[in-house]
């Protein structure tokens, strides 16, 4: 009687034996070579993009004059180049090598293969780079190539199905090796998920679109990169050690777990966001399960390498894979932990995550892909291979990556620490400046390692014969041991349906895609839609056509990759930026620009936060107004100066200034407070922080314009030594935060002053009261570029007050404040100035409420004679103060100068009102 297992084995043997003698399926070595070289060329270019991106953190002006070399576009091309150019080509090269071995059939067609090669490289990678550099892109993470390119990506995946999946379907093997499962599942899943992640956010706005984006952000890494890298590792380990993997059962358990949990991870990129909490928590749980799945997968790999430490150390390709396996364990556990809410609230948006993604893309995926390429390259007849250089390549890459990931991880913790405090945002940029420099330097050994890897494939002795070790004793023993297994009990598993294992793998791709699509995108989307319908103000303003065009420019330049537009329901976020983002706020955003990284502050509430001239100056050259900013300059949006924006400059400004307008104008926050109905807060962190819960700051501190009654009056120290110390401290603070506008000596002649209107105050030309300085520092000056600085510690504000006092230079002209002069001045003042400045000169005239900046309060500010004269002569450009030289005679103006200077000080009874 023929048992089922015998059937199974004999059929496989039959399949194999029919081709044993001269009938090995052909392998497309030409296509392998082409994809290997394409992968290495695009790898080096992509890494160069990355190094330029990193360099710009330290030298923001570097190559900053050209749009096509700006940070945002280079960043897009860096990640897309790594994704499509490097890893895509490397995986394709590996498929051509391994599919004929696993399916026992050649790939479908050589001609189709070359067509796929041309599509992948000359319809996707190259035009993608060119279009992004030219300003045609999509501001979505891992989906930056424009939609026209996406069409070719989908075409390429369809071609891959024919080229690589069909051979498995035709072979009808009953024992499909795990690498084949990963290849089939990965191709099918990505073919389906790619258009969803790239196209749907263009059609579904805001929070709902973000749910789809989150799906793709994780799927790109989890279901394109990971399955194919896993396929290489599962193949290369036994192929090199010549010993079967530890457990094929465990490998398939890992496969199913990875395919089940990876897609469900997507929303962990939006923890504490407006996406329904059920979806967030589901993603967090899936992330925890993913960590367990990875432990299982890695355990299987490491057990497969047991007793092979000698081989790992000698065989450089296997060592690459081993490093990748260890990195996979570390990065996956890191990913599971950082998805947890208590960790996520600190490290999300920081450089920690950038370190994490580099560990995933270089440490895991690239190391394994490099190992796969080096392995197959030695098995292609006629190629060259330089083992010494390959060894150097490994060590350079390992050292460079370790340095980079360690550096970025620490940088992320430093940023998180500053963000939790009330320090100004720019302090977090200053704090990690040195880490960014180290990160750039760590890119150099990585680049050198990649170049050496390439060199090692074109130098060294030519391999006249491919490496073979088919006589390995261990291999023979393994196989014989399997063939001696008694098949008597194999009845259940002998039926023909087993030959459809590839169909199950195919179905896994489709099924898990549908599941994740439903659970993470469709269901949360429905809930969001209902919530938006119920809560959104009926009067919500849409963007104008100009603002809409500005939004496109904002996306094109990569602004969303440094500035989020989502305030999370966390006390630290709310304190700094305002009330948490509601789903309806972005209901007109096609595609959403929520962002997943903060180098600059969140911009959700930029409306009314900065003046127009400040914004333009900042866009033209950020360091003109913020000395230590690392934001790139955008001179191509201007005609030579900050005051001359091009049409595009005007449009992007209009968009930036519209952010948060809908919420402010809708009265949403007032309604919420008035009805005492607190919006549903999913934030356990906020609930645990009494300060945030007690006074929900629906409007962020920095947004409160005008004068605050609660502004503390900061008096400098009275003790002389303490005062000296305060002045010294204030000088340092002034140089760091104020000198860009007010000039290093406080004369209002800083770098930014040329483009600001009204000009920054000349702090030497007036005596300011403590009350006035405190109020300006606390509230800013409405209608000017002066922002509030109340996020600085009170001690720092007091030091600034002390330092600004020290800047005052009394005028040289003698004062003539006799009674007659002052009476005449009072009369002139009432007749000409009181409507704005008020009868008593306190800046509270009938017209004052409508003026921004508000009229000067002469009780709190005493200008020098020279300054007061200058103002009466020329007015104050950018304010309502006109020149008076044509209306008043020189004598009258002199009298007025003396009068306004006499007003300084607290009002007294029967004094001049």
């Amino acid at each position, binding site marked *: 009687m023929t048992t*089922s*297992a015998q059937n*199974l084995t004999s059929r*496989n043997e039959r399949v*194999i034996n029919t081709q*044993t003698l001269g009938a*090995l399926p052909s392998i497309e070595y030409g296509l392998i070579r082409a994809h290997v070289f394409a992968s290495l060329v695009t790898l080096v270019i992509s890494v160069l993009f990355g190094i330029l991106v990193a360099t710009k953190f330290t030298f923001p002006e570097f190559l900053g004059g050209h749009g096509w070399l700006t940070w945002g576009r280079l960043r897009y091309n860096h990640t897309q180049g790594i994704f499509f150019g490097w890893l895509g080509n490397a995986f394709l090269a590996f498929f051509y090598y391994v599919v004929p*071995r*696993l399916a*026992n059939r050649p790939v479908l067609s050589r001609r189709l293969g070359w067509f796929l090669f041309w599509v992948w490289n000359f319809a996707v990678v190259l035009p993608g780079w060119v279009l992004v550099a030219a300003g045609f892109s999509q501001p979505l993470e891992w989906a930056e190539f424009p939609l026209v390119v996406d069409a070719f990506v989908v075409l390429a995946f369809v071609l891959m199905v024919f080229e690589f999946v069909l051979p498995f379907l035709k072979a009808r*093997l*009953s*024992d*499909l*090796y*795990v690498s084949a499962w990963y290849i089939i599942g990965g191709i099918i899943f990505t073919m389906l998920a790619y258009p969803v992640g790239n196209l749907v956010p263009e059609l579904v706005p805001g929070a709902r679109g973000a749910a789809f984006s989150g799906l793709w952000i994780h799927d790109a890494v989890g279901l394109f990169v990971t399955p194919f890298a896993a396929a290489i590792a599962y*193949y290369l380990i*036994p*192929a090199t050690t*010549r*010993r*079967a*993997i530890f*457990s*094929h*059962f465990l*490998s*398939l*358990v890992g496969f*199913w*777990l990875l395919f*089940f*949990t990876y897609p*469900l991870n997507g929303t962990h990129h939006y923890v504490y966001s407006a996406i329904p909490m*059920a979806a967030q*928590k*589901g993603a967090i*749980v*899936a992330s925890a*399960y993913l960590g367990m799945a990875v432990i299982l997968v890695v355990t299987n790999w490491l057990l497969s390498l047991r007793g092979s430490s000698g081989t790992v150390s000698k065989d450089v390709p296997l060592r690459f894979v081993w490093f990748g396996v260890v990195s996979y364990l570390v990065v996956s556990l890191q990913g599971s932990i950082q998805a947890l809410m208590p960790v996520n609230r600190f490290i999300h948006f920081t450089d920690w995550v950038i370190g994490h993604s580099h560990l995933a893309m270089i440490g895991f995926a690239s190391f394994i892909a490099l190992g796969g390429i080096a392995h197959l390259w030695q*098995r292609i*007849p006629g190629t060259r291979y330089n083992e010494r250089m390959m060894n150097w390549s490994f060590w350079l890459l390992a050292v460079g990556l370790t340095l980079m990931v360690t550096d970025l991880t620490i940088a992320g913790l430093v940023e998180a620490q500053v963000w939790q405090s009330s320090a100004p945002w720019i302090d977090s940029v200053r704090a990690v400046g040195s880490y960014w420099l180290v990160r750039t330097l760590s890119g150099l050994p990585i680049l050198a390692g990649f170049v050496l890897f390439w060199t090692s494939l074109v130098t060294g002795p030519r391999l006249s*014969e*491919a490496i*073979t*070790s*088919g006589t390995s004793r261990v*291999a023979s023993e*393994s*196989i014989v041991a*399997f*063939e001696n*297994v008694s*098949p008597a*009990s*194999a009845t*259940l*598993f002998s039926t023909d349906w*087993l030959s459809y294992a590839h169909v199950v793998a195919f179905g896994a791709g489709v099924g898990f895609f549908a599941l994740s699509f439903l*659970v993470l995108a469709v269901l949360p989307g429905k809930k969001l839609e209902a919530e938006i319908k119920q809560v959104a103000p009926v009067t919500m303003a849409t963007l104008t056509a100009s603002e809409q065009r500005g939004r496109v420019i904002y996306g094109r330049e990569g602004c969303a990759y440094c500035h989020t537009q989502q305030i999370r329901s966390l006390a630290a976020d709310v304190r700094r930026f305002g009330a948490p983002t509601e789903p309806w706020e972005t209901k007109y955003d096609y595609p959403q620009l929520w962002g997943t990284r903060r180098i600059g502050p969140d911009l959700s509430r930029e409306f009314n936060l900065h003046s127009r001239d400040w914004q333009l100056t900042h866009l033209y050259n950020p360091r003109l107004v913020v000395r230590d900013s690392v934001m790139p300059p955008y001179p191509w949006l201007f005609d030579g100066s900050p005051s001359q924006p091009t049409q595009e400059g005007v449009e992007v400004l209009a968009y930036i200034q519209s952010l948060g307008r809908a919420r402010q104008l809708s009265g949403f926050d007032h309604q919420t407070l008035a009805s005492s109905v607190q919006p549903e807060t999913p934030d356990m962190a906020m609930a645990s922080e009494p300060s945030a819960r007690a006074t929900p700051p629906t409007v962020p501190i920095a947004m409160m314009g005008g004068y605050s009654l609660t502004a503390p009056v900061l008096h400098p120290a009275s003790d002389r030594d303490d005062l000296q110390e305060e002045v010294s401290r204030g000088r340092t603070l002034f140089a760091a935060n104020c000198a860009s506008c007010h000039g290093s000596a406080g004369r209002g002649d800083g770098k930014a002053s040329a483009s600001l209107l009204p000009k920054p105050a000349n702090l030497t030309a007036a005596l300011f009261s403590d009350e006035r300085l405190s109020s300006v520092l606390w509230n800013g000056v409405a209608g000017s570029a002066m922002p509030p600085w109340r996020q600085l510690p009170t001690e720092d504000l007091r030091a600034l007050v002390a330092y600004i006092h020290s800047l005052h230079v009394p005028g040289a002209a003698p004062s003539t404040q006799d009674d007659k002069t002052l009476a005449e001045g009072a009369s002139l003042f009432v007749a000409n100035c009181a409507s704005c400045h008020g009868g008593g000169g306190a800046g509270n005239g009938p017209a004052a409420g409508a003026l921004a900046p508000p009229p000067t309060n002469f009780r709190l500010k005493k200008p020098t004679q020279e300054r007061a004269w200058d103002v009466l002569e020329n007015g104050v450009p950018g304010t309502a103060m006109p020149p008076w030289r044509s209306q008043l005679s020189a004598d009258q103006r002199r009298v007025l100068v003396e009068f306004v200077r006499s007003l300084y000080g607290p009002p007294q009874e029967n004094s001049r009102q």
Partner: protein
Amino acid sequence: MINLIVIAISAIMLALLLVWWRWPAFRVWIEAPKYSMLRQERRFDAGSARR
């Protein structure tokens, strides 16, 4: 959502473990590919050496 994920994963794991524990033939079948992969590798090596 959380319940769904936990139940689904637990069910998949339990089913796989049950089948693995209950049917030795499943173990043979599920482990077979790792040997056939090596056999294929040996064939290709041999073919390559012949060339």
